[in-house]
């Protein structure tokens, strides 16, 4: 299908809609996780990935609990804390705390081990765990973390990730750009894709939105391909959205 300048009824056909309640669910007691794509014991042939976006886990970890030391390789791993504090340790010698407003990125490359624990003794930590296939295998492992000003996402799209080390947010080994926006009710914004051929996956963090003619609610996901521009409208106050522009080819 031909590319269009903006999303239309025709291009919206090139979408996948993942309603929040259709996600995989795992409750391990200390960890409650919702999986947009197949992960661990949640296996769904129709939910393997969207382009290079392979994992989108919506995790809640109990007080003082967490993921013990475990390995990764050849994957770009992004963590976005939504509430609470997460304590990170890795085999590169990093020990850090990430909190709301921070973005963490790891290039696993030839291999790393890390652990992530809820630092808090009195509240859950809620965070998104996102895995992106890299555009280059066997890179040297690296860790990156930034603190962003939450005010910079009020009624605008704040870039939190890109392929460029000099650009705003963290960077990864992939032609991907992530943005977060926190909108007032009825506020609208456009997002123009940065690279031809890329798709975009929108994930609703809070509230309600409309993209094209599709209504989305909290924790719904919408993947759109073959478009250059999308228009987003908030349908509730303090509505928050994560936009992930990613290559569609592995």
């Amino acid at each position: 299908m031909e590319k269009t300048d903006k999303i239309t009824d025709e291009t919206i056909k090139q979408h996948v809609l993942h309603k929040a309640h259709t996600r995989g669910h795992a409750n391990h007691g200390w960890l409650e996780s919702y999986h947009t794509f197949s992960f661990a014991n949640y296996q769904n042939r129709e939910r393997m990935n969207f382009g290079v976006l392979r994992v989108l886990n919506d995790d809640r970890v109990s007080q003082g609990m967490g993921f013990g030391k475990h390995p990764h390789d050849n994957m770009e791993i992004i963590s976005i804390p939504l509430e609470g504090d997460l304590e990170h340790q890795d085999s590169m010698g990093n020990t850090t705390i990430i909190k709301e407003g921070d973005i963490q990125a790891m290039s696993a490359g030839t291999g790393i081990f890390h652990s992530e624990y809820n630092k808090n003794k009195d509240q859950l930590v809620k965070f998104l765990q996102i895995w992106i296939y890299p555009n280059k295998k066997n890179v040297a492992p690296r860790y990156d973390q930034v603190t962003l000003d939450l005010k910079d996402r009020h009624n605008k799209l704040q870039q939190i990730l890109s392929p460029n080390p000099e650009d705003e947010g963290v960077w990864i080994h992939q032609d991907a750009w992530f943005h977060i926006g926190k909108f007032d009710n009825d506020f609208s914004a456009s997002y123009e894709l940065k690279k031809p051929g890329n798709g975009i996956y929108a994930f609703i963090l809070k509230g309600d939105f409309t993209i094209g003619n599709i209504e989305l609610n909290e924790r719904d996901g919408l993947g759109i391909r073959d478009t250059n521009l999308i228009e987003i409208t908030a349908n509730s106050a303090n509505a928050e959205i994560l936009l992930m522009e990613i290559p569609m080819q592995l």
Partner: protein
Amino acid sequence: MRFVFFKNGMMKTINILYIGGHFEILETVIRLINANENWNGVGVMKDEEAKEVFRNKNFSIVLLGSGIQEESEVELCDFFKKQNPNIVIVQHYGGGSGLLKSEILLALENNKN
């Protein structure tokens, strides 16, 4: 989606070869594979070891882990395909348990087709 293999009334063991350059990850992947009673994992770090074990055991799946150079990967895939045209070769990403099950189940499905 079901992945149940019977042979003469017995559950068939699926042999899986993992090749990767990071020893601790190799150990982890093999432990995770062997946690499934119907899967048997063998892990090696060197190309020549991979060829040797492949000659001597009937594998259904090869998982390519991290640290394998591009030229080695091409040569190994060529070798495996010549030895067994039905072999399913899969790139393993992620290191841990998150994607391993998906990769193996998908490979088995492709093998069945």
